[in-house]
């Protein structure tokens, strides 16, 4: 125990000493680097800032209502009869209709796509479903270890696709924003607007979109 404490103290001292020396060297280099060209770094940073803001906004929009979603999930899954296979509970046999999809509450703007999990392409797993403010939010993981979020909401009609690249998914118009750190896909189908976001691989979004529309 004492050895651990001593070591921690030594690590602190050594790292501070190292940093002091390294910092001095860097300050000298700083003067030397004054003449380096910084090309269009300002522009890059500005773009990066915009991207980050957009990504944060998207994430917030997709993830903001986790508690609501949790309530919905509880309602959807725990609200089901405990015995969900006909024959599991003989006393219910006569009363229970055949197994049907869990009922989805009908709020005015709610987009009801209860079984996205069944439609996902091979290698994708639906890990969580949230509901927020008219959006059903699906958290998906695929076998390339890509975390993907898909939100479905009532199609507002016109959507802002500036900065997006138009593409087609199963003949339908889709819009993709592929960046180094994230990708966003927008696609409208049968009165539903899907917004997909993933950290890597825009093609994962396209595959999922093709499977679910």
């Amino acid at each position, binding site marked *: 125990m004492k*050895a651990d404490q*001593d070591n921690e103290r030594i690590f602190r001292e*050594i790292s501070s000493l*190292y940093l002091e020396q390294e910092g001095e060297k*860097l*300050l000298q*280099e700083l003067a030397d*680097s004054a003449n380096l060209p910084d090309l269009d770094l300002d522009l890059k940073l*500005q773009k990066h*800032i915009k991207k980050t803001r957009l990504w944060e906004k998207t994430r917030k929009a997709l993830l903001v209502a986790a508690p609501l979603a949790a309530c919905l999930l509880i309602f959807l899954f725990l609200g089901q009869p405990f015995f969900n296979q006909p024959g599991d509970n003989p006393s219910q046999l006569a009363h229970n209709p055949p197994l049907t999809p869990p009922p989805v509450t009908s709020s005015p703007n709610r987009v009801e796509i209860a079984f996205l999990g069944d439609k996902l392409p091979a290698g994708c797993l639906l890990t969580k479903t949230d509901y927020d403010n008219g959006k059903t939010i699906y958290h998906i993981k695929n076998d390339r270890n890509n975390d993907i979020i898909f939100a479905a909401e009532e199609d507002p009609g016109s959507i802002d696709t500036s900065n997006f690249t138009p593409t087609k998914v199963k003949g339908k118009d889709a819009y993709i924003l592929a960046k180094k750190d994230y990708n966003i896909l927008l696609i409208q189908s049968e009165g539903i607007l899907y917004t997909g976001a993933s950290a890597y691989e825009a093609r994962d979004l396209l595959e999922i979109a093709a499977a679910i529309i």
Partner: protein
Amino acid sequence: MLFVFLAFAGDAEKDKFEFVYNRYKKLMLSKAYAILGDYDLAQDAVSEAFIRVYKNLNKLDDLESGRTAAFLVMITKNAAITMLNKQTKTAIIDITEFEKADSFDLEETVVSEHATKELLQVVDGLKDELKAPFLLKYAYDLPLKEIGRLLKISENNVAVRIHRAKSKLIEALQKGGYGDES
């Protein structure tokens, strides 16, 4: 004008960020370029580093100090390495690496100037992936969670990397004959 999209707590914070940006951007660029070998990518890495710095402005006190320069360079190198790793898809550090004992008492060995020099060399020779979390913890006194956020790695990964760095320091001292494992 450049930072019009960033939300700052006040003018002082904005001035601070602008000062840091203008003073260190070229140094950071040269460090990122040394890793990535491409100016375009290096600029991406530097802008990523500035986004991370923007979220941690409060960690910077004396803006003209070597300590601030070292902090910024560390974050830049990390951003550049992350970009490089994304391209080459390097293996994830194995969490089961916690086997090295912490029972070796450094204090008994780090008494001589020679041993201190040796340790400084080992720190210098550490890979940046290990060096950054180690320094952020011990020199900047940041909690693992914050280090993870800055370096964009999990808290577990931070702990593993720090442990690896410490093990390397102890190992080097043992190899150098400065002490035996107790």
